[in-house]
């Protein structure tokens, strides 16, 4: 586990990864240099399909701990080329201006420390399966409540290199702690020899 601030206890038990992110700024935003979110990554090469189930309190009513962003809870998959270029796909919750929580799947691509794509899809506040697929030039993000029926976001050309790191991340910029549980992580690797960028 990469835990830049060293204040995010985690445990792995029977395939279940738990991470507790305290009520301090733990973001992963290269454009502002805030890169303190705990993440767990492994190398991967070529095309893949990865899926994980997100449980926990990705739901909050806290105030923001960031000077730049609103109060946010997010947890999900992370495709990491380097600290300036990476793709986040998270089950997320923010507090709107009217004080209500907004729950959504959040797909953000950063390239050379700039946000080049940010797309959301409203989802219910419940345990959520996220799936990220790198298939050739395009990357696909899908969300599901049961791990079998999927709703797709529009595919994007992430432009990541062939060799990256893939894993999970937990982000908190809320005054409420985030306790997230990742289960059922599955990674399928391509058997084709098709080149990727």
């Amino acid at each position, binding site marked *: 586990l990469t835990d830049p601030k060293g204040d995010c206890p985690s445990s792995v038990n029977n395939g279940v990864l738990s991470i507790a992110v305290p009520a301090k700024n733990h973001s992963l935003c290269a454009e502002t240099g805030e890169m303190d979110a705990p993440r767990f990554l492994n190398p991967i090469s070529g*095309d893949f399909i990865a899926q994980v189930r997100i449980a926990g309190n990705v739901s909050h009513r806290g105030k923001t701990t960031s000077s730049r962003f*609103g109060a946010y809870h997010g947890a999900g998959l992370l495709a990491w080329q380097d600290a300036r270029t990476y793709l986040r796909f998270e089950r997320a919750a923010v507090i709107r201006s009217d004080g209500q929580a907004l729950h959504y799947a959040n797909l953000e691509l950063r390239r050379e420390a700039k946000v080049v794509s*940010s797309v959301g*899809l409203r989802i219910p506040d419940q345990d959520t399966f996220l799936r990220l697929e790198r298939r050739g030039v395009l990357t*696909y993000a899908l969300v599901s409540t*049961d791990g*079998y*029926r999927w709703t797709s976001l529009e595919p994007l050309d992430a432009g990541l290199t062939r060799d990256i790191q893939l894993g999970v991340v937990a982000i908190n910029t809320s005054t409420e702690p985030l306790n997230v549980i990742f289960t059922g992580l599955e990674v*399928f*690797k391509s058997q084709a020899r098709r080149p990727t960028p």
Partner: protein
Amino acid sequence: MNAPRVLRSIDADFIVQAKVSGNLRHVGRRTSGLSVAYHGAGFLIWQNAGNYVPLERAGLVREDGRTVHFANFELHGNGEVVVKSMEIPDKDTYLRLERRGDRASALVSPDGSHWSCFDPIGARLSREVKLGVAAISTSTEPLKVVFSELELYTGEPKRSQEIEHNERLLAAGAGASYPRRAGSGSRVSNPEGGIPCVAWCPRRSSWRRSRAPIEPSQRREGSGRRTTYGGA
């Protein structure tokens, strides 16, 4: 059991996907005494002649002459058959078949990006099976099918207890469940066990069942509301 197929061995969980093109829709008469006129092409998980899982883009001609075009997902296991079908447009179709643990799931898409999903089927197949494509015709009209854009992804074999553990967690979650589509499929005993699948009537009867409107939850193509938000 004389449909042409191309199979390879595999001993892991997998996700396989391909585009199926060709004249699946047809107006031919049947060439089998036991089945309607049928064209089908798609994936096949094959353990043996009594245990296999096909997922096909299919077209058939009903007895009243009406032609129908659908995706057909079946489990043949130990003398029983589970049949699920879903009406789809008559055009090039992407099929995706997944084996994850003891479940097989199937998805259908017009573009390879947005999927309509079948309910998963419990498929207690052996660890090592054969996987490939098959083309089936019981019509007087020849079937010419093209498989393209084949993609295969493999994972680690998942233990049954791990699947069950995850499902217990899922069942305990707030509001999470495996919703079941009423009338979405049928478990049918095969009265003549061993009758070739291409010459068996449940496919036709399953189609009749599937004429009930498809629930909105099954219509995933572009149905999601998409908005843009900022993240942290």
